[in-house]
């Protein structure tokens, strides 16, 4: 283990040092090749111009190379692979897509994903908004927000263990050590194996993501609420509006843009949800989702890259409308800067 620590430290130094050396060295080289100081006026102007042409590319170069290898090339390659067979050797046309829409497991995943999309962003945004409004009104609101925000720092796997413990099932009549079944049994109900109840188990998995993401929605919406001009609310109060009217008619419309941002951000996350399903059920009991199905096909029976790529493309297609919206929104914010 000590050797590992040393090698890690060594590599951190080499990696970071390499980055620093590149940026420093490349700039130094540019200044040396096209000197702008200590040369005659017109030559200095020429060299400054040349520097100005080259230097930006020294700055963005590493980022461009890495983005090309790790994101741009894979998008193109995944598209290509989705038209090839499992090993990527021969062209099969749309066979993978035809397989997907005929596959029972795939259709089940699509259905589950739609349910996830319908429930999780709405629940997170709604709960986040409620909590943001409520915590604004009390003196210990900051502490409350911190605690509700806390699950955002927990990994999906960790959260899955936490909730699996809550859903834990023991036979009827035995001592229930899972909180949910203990409560059910306390009130005279029947303990259930929650994560294997077809269809409803989806909701028990969704609870985990809602539990994690509500804090995110709350923090963003809370700061938007603080930005609402005081006068608009005072005016409504003078006009005799009750708290619900103030909330729905004055506050919500003013933070509509932020609500949309929170909603779409969580939507994108939901489309990629993987860890929770893998660790809780691994797609059993009809709880499969696209991202986990894709991971499954990457390695199933030695890996079927054609089908895996096809599922990835379908996830991508689902994300595109949101992506377009996000780019527009970002452009609007920076004013076409």
């Amino acid at each position, binding site marked *: 283990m000590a050797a*590992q620590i040393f090698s890690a430290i060594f590599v951190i130094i080499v990696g970071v040092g390499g980055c620093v050396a590149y940026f420093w060295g490349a700039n130094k080289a540019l200044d040396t090749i096209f000197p702008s100081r200590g040369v005659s006026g017109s030559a200095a102007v020429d060299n400054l111009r040349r520097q100005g042409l080259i230097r930006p590319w020294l700055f963005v170069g590493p*980022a461009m190379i890495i983005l090309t290898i790790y*994101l741009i090339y*894979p998008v193109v390659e995944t598209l290509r692979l989705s038209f090839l067979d499992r090993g990527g050797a021969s062209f099969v046309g749309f066979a993978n897509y035809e397989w997907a829409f005929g596959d029972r497991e795939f259709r089940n995943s699509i259905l589950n994903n739609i349910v996830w999309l319908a429930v999780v962003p709405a629940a997170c945004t709604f709960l986040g908004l409620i909590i943001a409004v409520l915590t604004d009104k009390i003196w210990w609101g900051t502490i409350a927000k911190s605690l509700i925000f806390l699950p955002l720092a927990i990994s999906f*796997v960790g959260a899955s263990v936490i909730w699996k413990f809550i859903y834990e099932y023991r036979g009827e009549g035995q001592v229930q050590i899972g909180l949910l079944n203990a409560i059910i049994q306390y009130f005279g109900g029947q303990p259930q194996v929650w994560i294997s109840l077809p269809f409803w188990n989806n909701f028990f998995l969704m609870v985990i993501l809602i539990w994690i993401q509500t804090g995110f929605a709350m923090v963003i919406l809370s700061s938007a609420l603080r930005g609402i001009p005081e006068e608009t609310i005072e005016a409504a109060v003078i006009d005799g509006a009750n708290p619900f009217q103030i909330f729905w008619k004055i506050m919500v419309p003013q933070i509509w*843009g932020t609500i949309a941002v929170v909603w779409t951000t969580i939507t994108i996350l939901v489309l990629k949800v993987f860890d929770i399903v893998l660790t809780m059920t691994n797609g059993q009991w009809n709880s499969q989702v696209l991202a986990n199905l894709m991971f499954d096909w990457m390695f199933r029976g030695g890996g079927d890259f054609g089908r895996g790529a096809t599922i990835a493309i379908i996830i991508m297609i689902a994300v595109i409308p949101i992506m377009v919206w996000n780019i527009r929104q970002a452009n609007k914010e920076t004013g076409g800067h």
Partner: protein
Amino acid sequence: MAASTGKSFASRFGVHIAVLIFVAIWTVPTLGILVSSLRDKDQIIASGWWNSFASSSQTGAGRLPAASAQVEKDGKFVIAGNIFGDGAKRDISAFGVKSAAPTQYPAGSTADLGDGVTLQVNADGSFVLASPKAFEGDRGQRVYFASSAPPKFTTDNYKTVLFSEGIGRSFMNSLTVTIPATVIPILIAAFAAYALAWMRFPGRALLIAVIIGLLVVPLQMSLIPLLKLYNGVGSFFGVPSKTYLGIWLAHTGFGLPFAIYLLRSYIAGLPREIMESARIDGASDFEIFVKIVLPLSFPVLASFAIFQFLWVWNDLLVAMVFLGTEADQIVLTAKLNALLGSRGGDWEILTTSAFVTIIVPLIVFFSLQRYFVRGLLAGSVKGG
């Protein structure tokens, strides 16, 4: 804000209660594994963790010593001792000699086992088995009992998972992955962000648009081509395809769009006058970046660092694709996932391992929450 007007005591009270309920729902699950990880492993399955401060009761069984332990006393043959031996003492409430009736006799009473044989078991576990005839055989009398144990908290679970379940090693692996995968993208993104914010060059607007577009490319798109690429590079150069270097670069690539986006919007907002006066003084872009932009950007660099750190530390998908599952490479999240499969019902292992995996994010989160929130706000509602 909106609330300060015309509010009755009841509705103010209602707000406190409502928030309290939300806080409870959001903290109790985590509290559950923290408490459980500190409990004795027998008690975890004997009672719910919310009862962990009460005594836990369970039914046990034991065998009394065989005939060789008997002593003759006042014309009777007696075997005496303690059911628990030298082990942990529990409080016995009732006992019995048949498995069908394990709590037939209350503690302290004397049971008649027939043929004049009597057995007395006391609450502290001491017993006296007496008979007018000598005991025979090498198997002692079977005794069942209901007992309760005082709450017992221990750090043994942590010792077990850290040193014999491999969680300690995985902890190191996670650090080895996370630190470089946090530092490298910061440097690369900071330079790119500065160029995109303050330098003029053809294609800049296009580059910005591409980076914003890449922000939401699902990770899933990259996995298969990169896996193939890594396998290809690995076999071409005869090196392993699953390496720490590989996952550092992968995390760098996946983190870069957000890093550049976040840093650019911050750096673009720095006051123009500072840059221009520095430029008039003859400073080059490199000098301006290092001496002015980097120090001024510290808050946003910290925000991104926390983001990336938490993201990499908590990641399971990338680690499962680009790292091996052997002890020298498996990270905490992957290890926890493996334990869920192999140690499914052993909650003392699972809760403790889970707590070890979440403790670092929690510390980072609580100590640097300010920067984390700022990053979230900048990333989502910039100018909103």
